[in-house]
């Protein structure tokens, strides 16, 4: 795109661009009438649409250009000439007092009083307006500028302005004005009430503002530091990919964030000796027993996996798993009813030498749980044991019995 057409587009649609810049969400107003203009701004890279459902925004370079322009504008606008206004009020006050003293100037008295009142109210309004503007900027995180650097610059400017304003307030010597007005009730009311209120409230607002602005400056500076660090580390990794920082730990003076505490695994063991917990724990255990086994027939959503990247790996089955599988195969091939029902303790000889009964029970149970529902329905599994003598919610299993699940005739 040529510079001429860029400036042409900027000039032609300046109003629309300005509306977008002033919008709190930084979005250009869209309507059926301006669709072609918006398209032209997008094609000229003056605006862009971050998201098909979202609005159109100005591009970063355009926003930065406008930021710089508006920054200068704002600097001009927040320049309250408090000293000049106080001088004017003082001069008019002296003229007013002189007019009051000379009896033939009653017209001037009214005019001058009106003018002093106007000046005092204007000054009060100006102080209020200036603090309000500063609050607006800081509360909106200086959103009229985009880059962090611009926000830091804006924040610094705002701090300078607040300090200048605060300093200018010291030029307002209300006591001197009060003394000089020579007992005039109307002037005293203006200075002691209207001006005094405006100055006190501006002073306290400025104190709060400065605290807030310094905090926000700290925040922006932290953001800028984080951004610089991240970019620096990125450049570092570009030059030295795969670099490891193992030697960092030779130094044991690690700062707090690098001394991250090792996570602890907290035990949540039930206290079976506590009778207060008996009913609740008993309910929980019964609930657990009632839980149905997972139904493998429920169709799961298939993961999108690239088969070309998959590798086949054969996993050797261990001897105990093979023995547990044979345990079920023997049951299926058994002819007599006695042989169709088997306990773990009676079949321990089939397990590899050295297998404990407890482990054997778990292997048989694991094999049973690992079957699909169709195969599992061929068997019936029963835990053998007894309930605890004292705590009857606690079932102590000592063996497991598996038998063929023949349909009833």
């Amino acid at each position, binding site marked *: 795109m040529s510079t001429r057409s860029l400036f042409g587009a900027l000039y032609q649609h300046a109003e629309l661009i300005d509306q977008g810049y002033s919008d709190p969400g930084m979005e250009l107003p869209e309507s059926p009438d301006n669709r072609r203009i918006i398209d032209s701004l997008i094609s000229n890279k003056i605006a862009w649409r971050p998201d098909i459902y979202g609005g159109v925004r100005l591009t970063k370079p355009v926003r930065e250009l406008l930021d710089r322009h508006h920054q200068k504008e704002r600097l001009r606008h927040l320049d309250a000439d408090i000293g000049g206004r106080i001088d004017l009020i003082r001069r008019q006050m002296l003229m007013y007092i002189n007019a009051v003293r000379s009896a033939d100037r009653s017209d001037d008295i009214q005019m001058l009083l009106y003018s002093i009142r106007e000046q005092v109210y204007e000054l009060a309004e100006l102080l209020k307006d200036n603090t309000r503007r500063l609050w607006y900027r800081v509360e909106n995180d200086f959103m009229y500028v985009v880059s962090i650097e611009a926000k830091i610059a804006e924040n610094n400017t705002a701090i300078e302005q607040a300090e200048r304003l605060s300093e200018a307030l010291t030029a307002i010597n209300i006591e001197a004005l009060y003394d000089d007005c020579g007992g005039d009730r109307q002037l005293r009311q203006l200075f002691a009430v209207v001006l005094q209120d405006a100055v006190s409230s501006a002073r306290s607002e400025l104190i709060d503002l400065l605290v807030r602005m310094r905090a926000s400056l700290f925040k922006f500076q*932290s*953001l800028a530091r984080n951004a*610089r*660090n*991240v*970019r620096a580390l990125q450049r570092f990794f570009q030059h030295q*990919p795969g670099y490891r920082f193992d030697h*960092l*730990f030779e130094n044991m003076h690690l700062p707090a964030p690098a001394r991250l505490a090792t996570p602890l695994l907290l035990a949540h063991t039930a206290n079976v000796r506590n009778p207060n917990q008996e009913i609740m724990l008993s309910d929980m255990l019964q609930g657990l027993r009632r839980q149905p086994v997972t139904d493998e027939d429920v169709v799961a959503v298939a993961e999108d996996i690239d088969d070309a990247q998959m590798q086949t790996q054969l996993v050797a089955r261990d001897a105990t798993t093979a023995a547990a599988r044979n345990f079920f195969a023997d049951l299926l091939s058994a002819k007599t009813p006695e042989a169709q029902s088997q306990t773990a303790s009676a079949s321990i000889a089939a397990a590899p030498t050295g297998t404990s009964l407890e482990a054997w029970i778990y292997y048989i149970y694991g094999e049973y749980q690992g079957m699909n529902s169709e195969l599992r329905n061929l068997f019936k599994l029963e835990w053998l044991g007894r309930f605890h003598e004292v705590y009857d919610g606690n079932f102590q299993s000592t063996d497991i019995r598996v038998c063929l699940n023949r349909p009833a005739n």
Partner: protein
Amino acid sequence: MNDLFAEVVEALLAGKFICEYSNPEQFQFLLNDGRRDKVNHYVGQMGRELQCSPGGETYYLVMQSLARPETQRAVVETMRSVINELEPIIRCLQLIDSAQKNDSPLLPGDTLRESVILRAIEDAPAAIEELEALARSQKFKTTASGLAGKLRGILAKLVDSGYLLHPNEGFYTATGKWAWLYEVIDFVVHHEHIDVQEEHEQESLL
């Protein structure tokens, strides 16, 4: 009050980062000085100390002292894995930031839209390459095919590591853990004397 105290202490001891976005109720609880002192006193008896990021975004536990060799080993092991995972995390962060057209790195509370990031990546061949490389890295390894699947896989890994929350389909929220990570990065950059001067600054010095 006691239930919340127990929840907060358990979460912290389990190694969680408590922030406004991941655990709002627990975060509110810790904003109170008195309650924070009680938590600190409790964890202090286990050699731990409650720590807060400089901007107050997140609370987490650190070891009070590294005098015990076991503690030293455990802390070093934890930090070694964090620091040696910085490269893929930084690259991922850059990818997200450039896709979101952000000037500053991801901040706690920032919202990410999967569709926006994906569209920005699709429009830039370099970003596509970067995404492919990240999906092959150990930290973000994913077998998913297609750019969308890979991006989702990477974002899911950031959710698992506690850096992002996944409140709604297609939307992610950055947690306070980023604030801690930036402190760690600051430590690494300064301890390693990594040059933080930007390229344009270096040019202007020449």
